[in-house]
C-alpha cells in the first residue's frame, strides 16, 4: 500500500469524526468527548494494520481499507417486526434489543421490565442518564492504544447494548442482542459498543447476533466489554451470519473476577472477511473460562479467529476449543495465544484447534503461542488439519447410509462437537439448524436428526 493511500484512508475517517463530533455535541454525550478524541488520535497514528503486523499476518485488510464506508448514522431506515422475524431465535422469551445499522430500534425491541431485574437498554440512552456504571466500566477493559479497530470503535462509539445484572441476580432467560445491517446505496460502517456488567454472584446468558437484511456490503466494527464480578457466571454467544459481502471485526474483552465462570461460544457462518477477537483476562483467583468456537467458511470467505487468553491470577483454568470447516477457496485462521503472568501459579490452560478442509483450494493457518512467566503451570495445545475421514465414510456407507448423507453426518458430527458444549438448549438447537443449513447436504440431515 502506498503512503498516499494510507493517508487518504485515515483522512476519510478523520473527516467523518469531525462530522460525528458536531452531530453528537449537545446530546448529553459530551463527557465522552475526551476519550473519543484520544481514540481518534490513536487511530490516526496507528492506521489499519497490515500483514507485516504479527497479529495480522494471515489477514489482508486491503479490501476493507479500500472501501470508503459511510457512517451509518447518516442513513435512516425503519423496519417492522416482520422484517426481522426470520432472525428470531425460536422458543425464547426474555429481553431482546434490536439495532438497525448500529442504532437502537425501540419499536423492534423488548427490553423487559426493570424493577429488581437486570438493566437491558440502549447504550446511547444510558450515556445520557446512567453514568455510574458507564464511568466505572466503559473503555476500561478494551484497550485502544495498540488496536486500531478498538480505537476506531471507541472514537465512534455511540450506541449498542448496556446489560447490567445486579448482585446475586440470576437471569434465567437469555438476553438477546440482534444487530441488523440493511442494504444501503453506499456501503456503511457501524461501530456497535456493548457493555455487559455482572455484579457479584449473578448469572446471565447473552447472545450477540449479527445479521444482514437484503444482503449487501457493510462493515460492523464491534467492541463488547464484559466485567464479570466475583462468583458470577456468564454464557456469551456470538453468532456471525451476515451476508457474504460483509466485513465484521469484533472484539470480546472479558474481565473476570475471583471464582467467576465464563463460557464464550462463537459460531461464524457469514461475512466476507471476519476477524473474531476473544480476549479474556482471568484477573481474579480461581476463575475459569471456556472458549468454544466453530467457524465454517466457503466461497472466498475469510475467517480469522484471534484468541488471547491472559492468566493474571493463580489457580485459573482456561479451555479453548475451536473447530473450523473450510470449503471452496476460503481461508481460515486460528491464533491461540495464552499468556501466563508471573504470579499466575497453578494455571491450567488447554487449547485445541481442529480443522477440516473440504476442498483443495481451502486454506487454514493455525498458530498456537504460549507465553509463560510463571513456573508452576500446566499448558497444552494441539492443532489438527485434515480431510474427511474416508474410513468413517466407508463405515457409514457399509451400514446403508448413502455417500452424501454419510458426508453430511460426518460434517455435522464434527461441528456437533463444538455445538455440544453450548448448553443453553434453545440456542444450541437453533445453531444446529443454522449449521445444517450451511452444509451442502444439510437437507439430508433433517430426516436423520
Amino acid at each position, binding site marked *: 500500500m502506498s503512503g498516499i493511500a494510507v493517508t487518504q484512508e485515515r483522512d476519510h475517517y478523520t473527516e467523518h469524526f469531525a462530522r460525528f463530533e458536531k452531530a453528537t455535541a449537545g446530546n448529553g454525550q459530551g463527557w465522552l468527548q475526551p476519550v473519543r478524541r484520544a481514540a481518534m488520535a490513536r487511530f490516526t497514528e496507528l492506521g489499519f494494520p497490515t500483514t507485516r503486523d504479527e497479529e495480522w499476518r494471515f489477514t489482508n485488510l486491503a479490501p476493507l481499507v479500500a472501501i470508503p464506508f459511510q457512517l451509518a448514522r447518516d442513513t435512516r431506515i425503519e423496519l417492522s417486526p416482520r422484517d426481522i422475524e426470520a432472525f428470531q431465535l425460536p422458543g425464547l422469551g426474555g429481553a431482546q434489543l434490536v439495532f438497525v445499522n448500529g442504532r437502537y430500534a425501540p419499536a423492534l425491541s423488548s427490553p423487559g421490565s426493570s424493577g429488581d431485574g437486570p438493566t437491558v437498554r440502549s447504550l446511547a440512552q444510558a450515556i445520557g442518564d446512567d453514568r455510574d456504571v458507564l464511568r466505572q466500566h466503559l473503555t476500561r477493559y478494551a484497550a485502544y492504544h495498540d488496536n486500531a479497530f478498538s480505537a476506531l470503535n471507541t472514537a465512534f462509539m455511540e450506541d449498542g447494548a448496556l446489560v447490567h445484572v445486579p448482585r446475586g441476580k440470576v437471569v434465567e432467560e437469555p438476553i438477546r442482542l440482534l444487530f441488523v445491517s440493511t442494504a444501503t446505496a453506499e456501503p456503511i460502517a457501524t461501530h456497535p459498543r456493548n457493555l455487559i456488567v455482572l455484579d457479584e454472584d449473578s448469572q446471565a446468558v447473552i447472545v450477540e447476533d449479527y445479521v444482514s437484511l437484503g444482503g449487501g456490503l457493510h462493515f460492523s466494527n464491534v467492541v463488547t466489554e464484559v466485567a464479570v464480578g466475583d462468583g458470577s457466571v456468564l454464557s456469551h454467544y456470538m453468532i456471525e451470519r451476515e451476508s457474504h459481502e460483509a466485513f465484521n471485526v469484533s472484539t470480546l474483552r472479558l474481565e473476570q473476577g475471583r471464582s467467576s465462570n465464563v463460557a464464550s461460544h462463537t459460531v461464524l457462518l457469514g461475512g466476507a472477511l471476519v476477524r473474531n477477537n476473544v480476549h479474556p483476562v482471568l484477573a481474579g483467583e480461581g476463575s475459569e473460562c471456556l472458549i468454544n468456537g466453530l467457524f465454517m467458511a466457503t466461497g472466498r470467505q475469510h475467517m480469522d479467529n484471534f484468541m488471547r487468553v491472559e492468566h493474571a491470577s493463580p489457580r485459573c483454568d482456561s479451555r479453548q476449543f475451536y473447530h473450523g470447516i473450510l470449503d471452496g477457496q476460503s481461508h481460515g485462521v486460528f491464533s491461540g495465544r495464552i499468556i501466563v503472568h508471573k504470579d499466575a501459579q497453578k494455571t491450567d490452560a488447554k487449547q485445541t484447534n481442529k480443522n477440516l478442509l473440504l476442498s483443495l483450494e481451502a486454506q487454514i493457518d493455525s498458530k498456537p503461542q504460549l507465553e509463560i512467566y510463571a513456573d508452576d503451570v500446566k499448558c497444552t495445545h494441539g492443532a489438527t488439519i485434515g480431510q474427511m475421514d474416508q*474410513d468413517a465414510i*466407508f463405515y457409514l456407507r*457399509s451400514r446403508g447410509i448413502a455417500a452424501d448423507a*454419510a458426508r453430511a*453426518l460426518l460434517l455435522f458430527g464434527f461441528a456437533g*462437537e463444538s455445538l455440544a458444549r453450548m448448553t443453553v438448549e434453545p440456542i444450541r438447537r437453533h445453531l444446529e439448524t443454522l449449521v445444517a443449513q450451511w452444509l451442502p447436504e444439510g437437507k439430508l440431515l433433517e430426516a*436423520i436428526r
Partner: protein
Amino acid sequence: MLEITNLHVRAGNHEILKGVNLKVNAGDVHSIMGPNGSGKSTLAQVLAGRETYEVTEGEILYVGKNLLEMAPEERACEGVFMAFQYPVEIPGVGSAQFLKAALNAMRKARGLEELDAMEFLTLVKEKLKVLGVEEKLLHRSVNEGFSGGEKKRNEIFQMTLLEPRLCIMDETDSGLDIDALKVVADGVNRLRSPDRAIIVVTHYQRLLNYIIPDYVHVLLDGRIVKSGGKELALELEERGYAWVEEEVRAAGKA
C-alpha cells in the same frame, strides 16, 4: 446366495487375491482361515465394497445380482453386512442417530415405512436387551472411546438390529478375551437361520469353538487351496498352516 468366481484383486501394484472361487448357500456358515497376509481381510472388504481395492478379474454374484456393480450402501441395503476388524470411531455422530439413519435407509430400500423416533427407540432398546448391551451406548458417539471388546460387541449389535442376509465377520475375534468372545459368538449364533448365510474370517480356530462352521476354507497366498468340514479347523489349530503349504507345493510339482 453368494457365488465368487475367479476373483482377482489388487491394491496398488500388489496382487492380493489371485483367483478365489467360493459358493455360499443360505443357511450355511463358512469359515475362511489363513495365515497373515493370505488375503482373508481383503476378501471381506471387497464383499463390503471397499473402494481402495481394485477387482481386476472375476465376478461376484449375490442373490443373482452383480455385487461388484453396487455401491457399498446398496449392498448394505440388499442385506450384506460386514463386521469390521477395526470399527471406526466417529466423534460427534451419536450412536442413536447413526443407527436410525442406517435402519431407515434399509427399510426405505426394502419398501418399508421409515421408523419415527419412538418406534426406533422401542426397537433398539429391545435389541439391546437381547444382547445385554447397556442403553447408554445410544448416547455415545459411534465407537468413540470404546474398548476393543465394546467395539466388537457394537458390531454384533448393529448386525442384530439390521438383520442382514449375508453376514461377514472380518477377524471379529482378534484381540478379544474369552468372555467377549463368547458374547460375540452368542450374538452370531442367535442370527443363524435357514435364510441367512454367515462367513467367518479368522486367523485362529478359537472362535470356531463357539460358532461351529459348516465349511472351512484355507486361503493361502490369494487362493482357496483347501476346503473341508469343521474338523479342518481343528487340524489347522493343531498343525498350523505349513502342512497345507507343503501339500500345495507338492500338488504344483505333480
